[in-house]
């Protein structure tokens, strides 16, 4: 298939359809409303269902019901709406139901603003709802990567029977880029023998549930989830490295911020500073091994985020004190410029000059 020019939010919708998703339940919120708007006409065109729910709470529970029947289903929102969905996300994780959740982040806390932000990293990767659970969290940095990761997200969700979250920001959702959606796929190849479809001649009943009143049984369930999560941590990390091989300063950044830092690195290289970018594509599982490999020559790591410093904690955890970790962040919907990041790099180079 050839490339088409598309807005990020709409590309999420089209990528979902190309991945065989025919069901969407959502609620309008800026800056992601183009996605439900797109699917409201596009899904019926391919025989699917688009339903605008009365609330985020209802939407995620519709997803829970749909996922329980073994179909590919998606919902989307932006930060405050994702907070409302946390109850349902915890239940989806507990009941081991696959689905894809989209968060096009805006600034917070509270009503916050409607401009791009990355301040939901903790919520996405550390469990925004209650209980011991994880989400597979994917962070695209281009419209093309949206298309690739939507497909990947559905596959991972189906494979591991758990919700996956695509974490973008308002900038990614709103910008237009050429995109190739590739070949169409579906969730058919995955086993759905567990789904509630009516017994249809089965001896046993299928039950979708997250309640285990006996502590021994709940512990066994928790352990089963843990085993799955450990497997994912081993198998599914993804990251991009940009000029890190000889880099003395490695910038760790994800999503749109990583693109800005790449521009900063190009500028730094022209001034003779050996800088590079490490971009986690999976935020959970966090690519710890890859980060350590990318920082073999580094003297310092600079984490850049549109937050007060969230992913930086995972960077520190991954490096285990091996390298100093600096942080630069813009918040409230303010987007760092490449020049700002370059300035930070220069300041850091000055500070660590002796080591370099």
């Amino acid at each position, binding site marked *: 298939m050839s490339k088409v020019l598309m807005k990020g939010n709409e590309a999420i919708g089209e990528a979902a359809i190309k991945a065989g998703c025919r*069901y969407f*339940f959502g609620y309008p919120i800026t800056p992601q409303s183009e996605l439900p708007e797109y699917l409201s006409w596009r899904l019926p065109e391919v025989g699917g*269902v688009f*339903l605008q*729910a*009365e*609330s985020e*709470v*209802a*939407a995620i*529970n*519709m*997803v*829970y*019901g*749909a*996922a*329980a*029947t073994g*179909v590919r*289903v998606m919902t989307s929102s932006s930060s405050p709406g994702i907070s409302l969905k946390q*109850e*349902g996300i915890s*239940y989806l994780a507990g*009941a081991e139901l696959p689905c894809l959740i989209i968060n096009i982040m805006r600034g917070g806390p509270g009503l916050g603003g409607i401009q791009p932000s990355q301040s939901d990293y903790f919520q996405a990767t550390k469990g925004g709802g209650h209980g011991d659970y994880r989400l597979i969290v994917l962070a695209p940095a281009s419209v093309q990567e949206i298309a690739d990761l939507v497909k990947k997200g559905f596959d991972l969700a189906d494979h591991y029977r758990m919700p996956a979250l695509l974490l973008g920001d308002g900038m990614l959702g709103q910008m237009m880029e050429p995109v190739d959606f590739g070949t169409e796929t579906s969730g058919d190849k995955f086993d759905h023998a567990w789904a*509630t*479809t*009516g*017994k*249809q*001649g089965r001896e046993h*009943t*299928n*039950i*979708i*549930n*997250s*309640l285990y009143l006996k502590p021994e049984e709940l512990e066994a369930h928790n352990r089963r989830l843990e085993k799955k999560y450990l497997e994912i941590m081993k198998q599914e990390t993804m990251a991009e490295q940009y000029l890190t091989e000889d880099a003395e300063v490695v910038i760790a950044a994800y999503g749109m911020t990583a693109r800005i830092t790449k521009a900063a690195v190009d500028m730094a290289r022209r001034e003779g500073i050996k800088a590079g970018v490490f971009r986690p594509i999976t935020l959970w599982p966090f690519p710890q091994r890859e980060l350590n490999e990318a920082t073999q020559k580094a003297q310092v790591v600079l984490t850049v985020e549109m937050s007060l410093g969230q992913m930086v904690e995972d960077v520190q955890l991954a490096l285990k004190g091996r390298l100093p970790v600096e942080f630069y962040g813009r918040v409230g919907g303010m987007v760092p410029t490449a020049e700002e990041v370059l300035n930070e790099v220069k300041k850091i180079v000055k500070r660590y000059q002796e080591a370099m």
Partner: protein
Amino acid sequence: MAVVFERPKSLKETKFHYCPGCHHGIIHRLVAEVIDELKLQEKTIAILPVGCAVLGYEYFDVDCIEAAHGRAPAVATGVKRCRPETFVFTYQGDGDLASIGTAEIIHAAARGENISVIYVNNAIYGMTGGQMAPTTLLGQKTTTSPQGRKAELTGYPLRVCEMLATLQGVTYLERTSVHDPKHVRKTKKAIKEAFQVQLAGKGFALVEVLSACPTNWRMSPERALDFVKNQMINYYPLGVFKSLEEVE
């Protein structure tokens, strides 16, 4: 010898955990009997609530989904929209449906979702140990209204059927009781009617069943029956609030 009474096929051979004098057992049985009579067992998906009926999946011999508190109508919507060929019902108590789940039930009804709802109203939170519900009668003592419910403090009990009857999306609404055999039979008839509405693709149907909670009402099962008959029906009148004929 002819068998005149047996366990409905759609009930598993599991003993109910319900308290003596509780009506959930009767209502479960009625639902199962209707599922059998309409030959729905193989295509039914039951959505269970949080509350005393939370373990319904241990009892109903059909595919079951356990929903979060109050969210059963949204879950049922997701199921029915993806699998319109299945038969989908929710089974919810008054804390679940009339308090934490008011948004979900009202909007499922307003959309005319083609689902059936069994709403069991016993005017109290049973599972959590007898706290005040939105349906608790004025003056009724509960663990969170120890002096009796006062309107000045917590307002008035919610009449769900009357409220939903104003919605155009609703096809069938009836309030029944199970405090004596005559009303048990009437309840079964109402459940059957509601299920047939869905089978005909005619939209949203709800049966509210007034039921007793002797344990949390601190009453003997016999006195609890009197409370349903004399107090609850007085505030929650029985009858059909909306029917298919009326809608058509």
